[in-house]
């Protein structure tokens, strides 16, 4: 095995890490604010991927527009979804089960509408390799990695600096205290939920560029998103980026030395290790 092969995998692992963080950010936001694990997160992301796929392949829509379009349409779905979730959100177990059921419905809708075929969004200029100094990466990976960084950065800024962002943070840390200073916490819940879904939708087409769109692949996306959320610590967006990089890099390096089986085992091992060592996450704090 050559040095350059390893260097290339490290580079693409880093880029994939940024992608992973973006694929997880919607779930993390919803979990942070509403304390709901949206088990349909992965399916919502796939819905965005399908929207992107048909927009780009079928209608020739340029990528940036397709991203916005996917985000918007899944955001609208999220808005309807929120009103279903709100009915029973006081019951934690039932809410968890409900979100799983919504995921099942979406998966089977995909199967019914789009068949079991795997698809990939392949835009010719994105499939070429580009040289970054000594390493070569796929341009699709580069573009989606950079877009992910941009969105994560934008979201971090939004949460840190804007009034709505601060209300979201306050509400996720202590809901009652937020209500006491006049924050309409139910509005914040709705906003965060819809934003979380829209972010999943937005990430969808990028997922379709770096990975296969498989109608039953939503669960795997949700699992990874949850692992990263736990690894990062509740509501920490920078932590999410670091966690994504740990996963992306780990997987990329493992694939060089071992089979894809160990790639799957790596995520699980990471999950178990976090549960044992630092359930409050890298950036979380022990209370």
């Amino acid at each position, binding site marked *: 095995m050559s040095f350059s092969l390893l260097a290339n995998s490290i580079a693409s692992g880093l880029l994939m890490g940024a992608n992973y963080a973006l694929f997880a950010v919607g779930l993390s936001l919803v979990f942070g604010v509403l304390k709901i694990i949206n088990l349909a997160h992965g399916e919502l992301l796939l819905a965005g991927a399908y929207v992107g796929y048909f927009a780009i392949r079928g209608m020739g829509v340029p990528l940036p527009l397709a991203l916005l379009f996917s985000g918007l349409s899944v955001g609208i779905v999220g808005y309807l979804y929120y009103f279903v979730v709100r009915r029973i959100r006081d019951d934690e177990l039932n809410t968890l089960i409900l979100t799983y059921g919504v995921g099942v419905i979406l998966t089977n809708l995909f199967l019914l509408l789009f068949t079991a075929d795997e698809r990939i969004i392949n835009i010719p200029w994105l499939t070429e390799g580009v040289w970054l100094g000594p390493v070569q990466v796929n341009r699709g990976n580069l573009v989606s990695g950079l877009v992910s960084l941009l969105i994560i950065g934008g979201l971090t800024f939004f949460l840190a600096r804007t009034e709505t962002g*601060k*209300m979201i943070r306050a509400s996720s*840390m202590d809901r009652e205290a937020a*209500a*006491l*200073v006049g*924050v*309409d916490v139910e509005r914040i819940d709705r906003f965060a939920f819809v934003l979380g879904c829209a972010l999943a939708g937005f990430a969808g087409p990028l997922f379709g560029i770096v990975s296969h769109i498989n109608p039953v692949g939503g669960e795997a996306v949700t699992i990874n998103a949850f692992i990263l959320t736990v690894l990062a610590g509740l509501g920490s967006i920078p932590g999410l980026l670091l966690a994504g990089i740990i996963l992306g890099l780990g997987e990329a390096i493992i694939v060089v030395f071992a089979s894809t089986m160990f790639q799957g085992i790596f995520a699980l091992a990471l999950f178990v290790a976090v549960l044992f060592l630092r359930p409050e996450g890298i950036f979380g*704090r022990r209370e």
Partner: protein
Amino acid sequence: MPEAILSLSGVVAGYGEVVVLRGVSLSAEEGKITVVLGSNGSGKTTLMRTVMGVLPPIEGEITFRGESVRGLKTHQIARKGIALVPEGRRLWGDMTVRENLEMGYLLRREGDSLEERLEEVLEIFPHLRRLLRKTARTLSGGEQQMVAIGRALMGDPDMVLLDEPSLGLAPMVVAEVFRVIERMREAGKTVLLVEQNAKKAIEISDYVWVLENGEIRFSGPPEEAEENEKVRRAYLGL
């Protein structure tokens, strides 16, 4: 007779099936310090949370400036000009002191700008000025309590509710907290103070209520409270 700005009549409230307040009637006069005494578990915190709409009352009526606040959401009640300094302070630990204070400014209804409000609060708590950039969870208990009170004052409320603000603080800090409460009255604010530190609370109060087991057991001006056998024994340790 002066107006009661806040009044409760026959309020029953609790958690699920557990009834904590069993028909509480109580009022607070505008511009005065009203104190509610009660031992641990008597329902003081529940009372505060019910007034703020965190817990919906099962029965009874709560009015603020003559208007019913029953059924309103917490943020709507807060926006009427009532701020609660909750038990245990409940700052946002990952936010800076400045951010915590700025969040309190969300309650502003008109008038002062953020900087003006911040200046006024920092003038009350000069100690906080050099802590503004610190993360709230790194502060000492006393400092956190000042931020919590400061946050409530940022919105320039007409009425401030304080839930055991002296709990767990060093005597010097307790003295400062009580001074600040008296300053609130001087500034024309109405104060409803819940305390276990009965001696100090009675000293600065204009009217005293005693809550036991979710029911009002005594009410009267502070002189009467100091004379009352039960209050003396239970709260003043005499």
